[in-house]
């Protein structure tokens, strides 16, 4: 298992560009709303500002509250090292590494939920309760969607799986890959607290999911949360783009360029979805996630052809 220099470059790109992805989403939403919008680098500015702030903590809380943000960021960073981009190698790859990625996010969620319950706030408990249901339903859809790609590429390590998704595979297996990509897209929106599952900009705590769980965090801890969620969007996005953009020429410049263009399109697509759709009623969200699982299951049935 040699360490690829390219993988390190990819990790650095992920760490640098992940916040910019959020900027792109917000920029798209602003354009739709007829505003000029914030700079694309705004998330980086916010992070820098937050790092210089003090923190306020509730006297109810225990050290678990402080663990939530750092575990979330650390897990997302390690996951970023495990997920390849542009069909290239990840820093570490082994069959089943996708399970480790999913469970790292599970660990982050466990501690985020713990930190939310640690404040003793009814609102945060509410958000935590919704988060655990939606993520439990998203997990089967995620694994089923990846199993589709795994069955078609004959491999279950993210690096060899995504590396094998080329135009040839798409011509042979377009329907199931497209269905799996749609399922993974829904999972991506749900896992990253995006419309139609959750609204990152809503003003009413009662209707939030992810944002309300982190209400009590401030300063550097909030920066860790923001950066962690940007990384999570990048990581899940690079899996989706890895499937949806089958440019595998072997040249890191061409493949990387196509990948980055794919990520930009993904961010713009999220922005468009957020601008044109309303958030679903909370009771409808499980149905959406179960249908994502259903789509992935149909895709799987197609792989039995």
């Amino acid at each position, binding site marked *: *298992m040699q360490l690829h220099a390219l993988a390190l470059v990819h990790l650095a790109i992920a760490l640098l560009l992940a916040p910019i992805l959020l900027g792109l989403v917000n920029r798209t939403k602003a354009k739709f709303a007829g505003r000029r919008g914030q700079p694309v680098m705004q998330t980086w500015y916010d992070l820098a500002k937050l790092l210089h702030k*003090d*923190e*306020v*903590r*509730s*006297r*109810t*809380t*225990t050290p*678990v509250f*402080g*663990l939530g943000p*750092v575990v979330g*960021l*650390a897990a997302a*960073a*390690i996951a970023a*090292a*495990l997920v390849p981009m542009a069909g290239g190698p990840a820093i*570490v790859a*082994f*069959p*089943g590494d996708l*399970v*480790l990625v*999913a*469970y*790292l996010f*599970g*660990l982050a969620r*466990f501690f985020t939920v*713990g930190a939310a*319950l*640690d*404040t*003793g*706030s*009814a609102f945060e*408990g*509410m958000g935590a*309760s919704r988060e655990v*249901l939606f993520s*439990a*339903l*998203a*997990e*089967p859809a*995620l*694994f*089923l969607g990846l*199993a589709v790609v795994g*069955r078609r590429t004959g491999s*279950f390590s993210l690096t060899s799986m995504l590396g094998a998704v080329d135009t040839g595979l798409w011509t042979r297996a377009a329907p199931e890959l497209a269905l799996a990509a749609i399922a993974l897209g829904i999972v991506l929106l749900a896992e990253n607290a995006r419309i139609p599952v959750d609204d990152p900009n809503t003003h009413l705590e009662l209707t939030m999911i992810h944002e309300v769980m982190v209400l*009590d965090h401030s300063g*550097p801890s909030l920066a*860790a949360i923001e950066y962690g969620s940007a990384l999570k969007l990048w990581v899940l996005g690079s899996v989706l783009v890895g499937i949806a953009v089958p440019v595998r020429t072997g040249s890191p410049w061409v493949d990387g360029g196509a990948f980055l263009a794919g990520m930009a399109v993904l961010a713009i697509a999220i922005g468009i979805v957020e601008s044109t759709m309303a958030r679903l009623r909370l009771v409808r969200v*499980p149905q959406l996630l179960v249908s994502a*699982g259903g789509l992935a299951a149909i895709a799987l049935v197609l792989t*039995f052809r």
Partner: protein
Amino acid sequence: MTSLLVSLGVVCSGGMAAAIVRRPRAATVLGAGSAMLGSVLGALGAARAVIGAPVEALEFSWGDFGRISIAIDPLSAFFLLPIFVLSGVAALYGAEYLKPRDGASGANGSPGLHWLSFNLLCASMALVVVARDAVLFLVAWESMALASFFLVTRENDRRAVRDAGWLYLAATHVGTAFLFPLFLILSHEAHTTDFSAFPAAAAALQGSSGVLFLLALVGFGTKAGILPLHIWLPEAHPAAPSHVSAVMSGVMIKTGIYGLVRMLTFLGPPQEWWGWALVALGCASGVGGVLFALAQHDLKRLLAYHSVENIGIILLGIGLGILGVATHVPALAVLGFAGGLLHVVNHALFKGLLFLGAGSVLHAVGSGEIDRMGGLLKRMPWTGVAFLVGAVAICGLPPLNGFASEFLVYAGAFGGAGSPTNAVSIPALAALVGLALIGGLAAACFAKAFGVVFLGEPREELASHPHDPGLPMRLSMALLAGACALVALLAPWIVQAMAPAVSDASGLDADLVAGQLAAPSRWLGLIVGAVAALVALVLALIAWRARLLAGRIATTGTWDCGYARPTARMQYTASSFAQPITAFFGPFLRTRAHAVRTAGYFPPGASHATETPDVASERVFAPILFATKQALARLHWMQQGGVHLYVLYLAVTLLVLLVWKL
């Protein structure tokens, strides 16, 4: 072998001495001390045998009734090790747990009898996994059931405890009733009760090996707690003292898994449908167990349902392993069996830890009702941290041991899902979906259990000031928490050391298994590396944040969206936390709500209570038992209560039998 015999001798004689001495203190010292000493000795011996020390056997006859025949092969040793480790730690915990507390009733019998039963339970569990003779096996099996019955019913002044005890006794005997025909058929064919003759007998009975498999599945599955045979677990575990729950849930139910695996080694080449059956039952037990756990309000009942869930994960592993053997895919067979067996050990460690933590909470708060608790982490930091470790481990989350075994099963399922054979890929995909759903729901359940019990503020004013238990209880929790971390850290080597046990269980050649385990061991090594990086990163981030802040942390009340006077009663409760999930799965769970709604402009008060009785016992067993009772009621006229009549019945029966035989 010597260490096992010495250990059994120490444990049994210590238990008997504890029953004889009159001073409670001396009884505790003798009973718990001998259990600990015996466990250390036994565990050392078992550890040597796991890694493939030559199989040692011992045999002598006890007249016409059978022979004592025991042997420690790697598979036996693999189950012996957790039995001894957890029994020893639980004995240490129990030594303090049983001490009479202020305000508690001391009418629960002397500790001497408790330790006699406890030590007999340890010894008989050990005997079950080393017995090589059907009669000896059943004797050990039965004494295990009886010893644990007396342990469960220790607090028998409470009606709930008595009911739980009877249910357990009935359930375990129903299970045993399926084992008797199983062993009778095999012994009849083999003309001996010796296990070594059973494979040949099973081969001769090739046509009915499916029947034998089903008998073993029901008989051993009742002990293991496979859905829907699990109904005794959620009653017995909360009723028993906590260290007993830990032993019963952590290792005693695993003797059911041992029995099933041992029986598979007799039955020869498995059929594909066995694997499908186990995968289906594994999914049902796993998802069903965790869903019912989510709906519970009592901490120990919740943990009991999680035993059903984890048995499900173990079955998924073994089922995939059987499929691998049946379809000649050694990679799948090895991953499945290794994952299932490693999960046996892991579950013993973290479930033992969680029950001990729950026991400390019960001790401190005096109630197991989750919705009344809160904020215990500040008041009982040792217990809280131990419970957190157990919770992360049982959810199968990366830094701890639960992930290692679940990963192996996942890897097997993903590998099987890619198989071109539909008979493998479809169950493997089912296992994949099941595992994913179980993982997500288990995390939800333990977020609820840990979050509501230990975080936030106390939801009710607690009568006493809860505080951490004394040194023995703290030490035993710390030992198990350390073991969880250690197994996670050493997983790559442990998996390789499991090769002889996996080879025994799967019937595959030892060298082949060792070769197949090399790759998973390498993956686990990479996982350990990634996890080490994660832990280092977390620590670095904490240090960096502390430097950035350097004392600039202001403390205030929780930001409750501007509400100025929040109270602890406004916190989210465990029931509310789980409500979206229980509502979503409502058609399956059938939760009942008893609500008094508000009415009018000045409502006097409202209340809402829910209960989720077990679907299996309500919908399956209650109708069957009721119908049986109705049918047998016609024979009620025979039950007169006069002994002379009963003697007459006996005589008539004997006469009829005699005539029939003539």
